[in-house]
């Protein structure tokens, strides 16, 4: 991929975040390009989730800049941020489905306010069905989240993240807590969605198989900084033992 000719859709510069004396991010940098699958790997507690929550404005960074499609989200007002968020899909680690609503209502929820921003909007019912069809769960449309298995919940959450046809999708540990077969199904689903919706994806994971199958590029987040960056092959065959350690199953 020729990165020099492309503008990043998402760019983090010198991102810093501390919680008291715990300095989680110490100047983290990242560029995500259009159509790219960028994987962020790091140990538990290394600040991967904090970083991704900074990107969607759930956590305010201490310093640095976050630019999404040429707009700095840190200086943005709430309304502009809400508008920009419609261009970002976010898959939470625990799915975060609204447990008092059915699957249908979960998917309708983001459309209540933002259906006018969806390209070629076909109507709420059609959009919900199309999103559920793309994750293979149309039959579960009237079920409650509690009636779904962990893998199905993850797929519904993915359908909800897709409902506004976002340009960027962020996955926070998409395969954590799933059995290997279901995890593989989710990974294949992520690949097919990337092709179908032509999205750029930022994937936070420590699942080596997930990183191998899906990544175009990997960044290792260690001690709050970019420790290493490269393709799966480059990093897994690195001469640095700490880098190689991430890729041992």
């Amino acid at each position, binding site marked *: 991929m020729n990165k020099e000719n492309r503008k990043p859709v998402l760019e983090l510069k010198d991102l810093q975040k501390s919680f008291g004396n715990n300095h989680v991010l110490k100047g983290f940098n990242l560029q995500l390009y259009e159509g790219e699958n960028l994987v962020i790997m790091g140990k538990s507690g290394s600040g991967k989730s904090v970083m991704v929550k900074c990107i969607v*404005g*759930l956590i305010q960074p201490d310093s640095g800049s976050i630019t999404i499609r040429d707009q700095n989200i840190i200086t943005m007002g709430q309304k502009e941020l*809400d508008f920009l968020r419609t261009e970002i899909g976010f898959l939470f680690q625990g799915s975060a489905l*609204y447990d008092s609503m059915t699957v249908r209502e979960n998917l309708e*929820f983001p459309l209540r306010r933002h259906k006018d921003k969806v390209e070629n909007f076909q109507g709420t019912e059609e959009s919900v069905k199309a999103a559920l069809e793309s994750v293979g769960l149309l039959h579960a449309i009237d079920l409650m989240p509690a009636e779904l298995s962990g893998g199905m919940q993850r797929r519904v959450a993915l359908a909800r993240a897709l409902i506004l046809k976002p340009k960027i999708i962020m996955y926070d540990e998409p395969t954590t807590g799933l059995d290997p077969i279901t995890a593989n199904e989710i990974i294949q689903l992520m690949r097919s969605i990337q092709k179908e919706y032509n999205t750029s994806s930022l994937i936070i994971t420590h699942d080596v198989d997930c990183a191998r199958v899906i990544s175009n590029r990997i960044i290792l987040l260690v001690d709050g900084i970019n420790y290493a960056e490269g393709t799966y092959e480059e990093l897994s065959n690195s001469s640095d033992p700490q880098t190689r350690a991430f890729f041992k199953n």
Partner: protein
Amino acid sequence: MSKPNSFSDRTKSFFAEIGDMTFFAGRFFRELFSAPFEFKELIRQCYNMGIRSLFLVTVTGFILGLVFTLQSRPTLMDLGAESWMPSMISISIVREIGPVIIALICAGRIGSGIGAELGSMRVTEQIDAMEVSGTNPFKYLVVTRILAVTLMLPLLVIAGDTIALIGSAIVENLKGDVSYTLYFNKVFDALSFSDVLPATVKTVFFGFAIGLVGTYKGYNCAKGTVGVGEASNSAVVYTSMLLFIIDFIAVFVSDIFFEL
């Protein structure tokens, strides 16, 4: 954040929480008058908090009227003042006991429910998911709930007071041979505008307090199941305390305006 241990830490933490809650209330009023308005969710919450609490409130009100009359009867009989029974019961229930008891019942049912529901939504990242989807969760979850309790509590108290008076009338009818017509004539003679208005107005504040504390505790719930339990529990404890403070202020203010 570690838990405060010393007295001064706990005092600081207490006042910090009062300050946070004041800002939270301020945000409620800001968001209340700004579009978009979540009418559908407001109606749903009014149904959940109003209609679904009605059974509990009516049962409590009925027993309250029944027991209160049974307990007061012997003393009034000793004094030869049985005829004062409808006046005494109605003024006590409408002015004070009805609103306070029903508000406390609702603090238990509604306040803890809101605290637990929003707390578990916070812990399971559902509130974050709403925010990320470009919906204002404060408006959808907090404003609708506070408004629903504020609107519903006065109605519940009116229903509870009415049922309590019916309970009292039944006892008087059975034990004192007082007809229902006579009983309620005496009740309406005894009650005046200065009894009903301040009592109803204070229930609006009671409702607001239940909604505010419940949503504040749930919305700012600490991580984990312990956090949800604490949010639910402290919502009830704080609200109960706040209800008595509001009641004291309401009686004090009523006394200035209506010379109780």
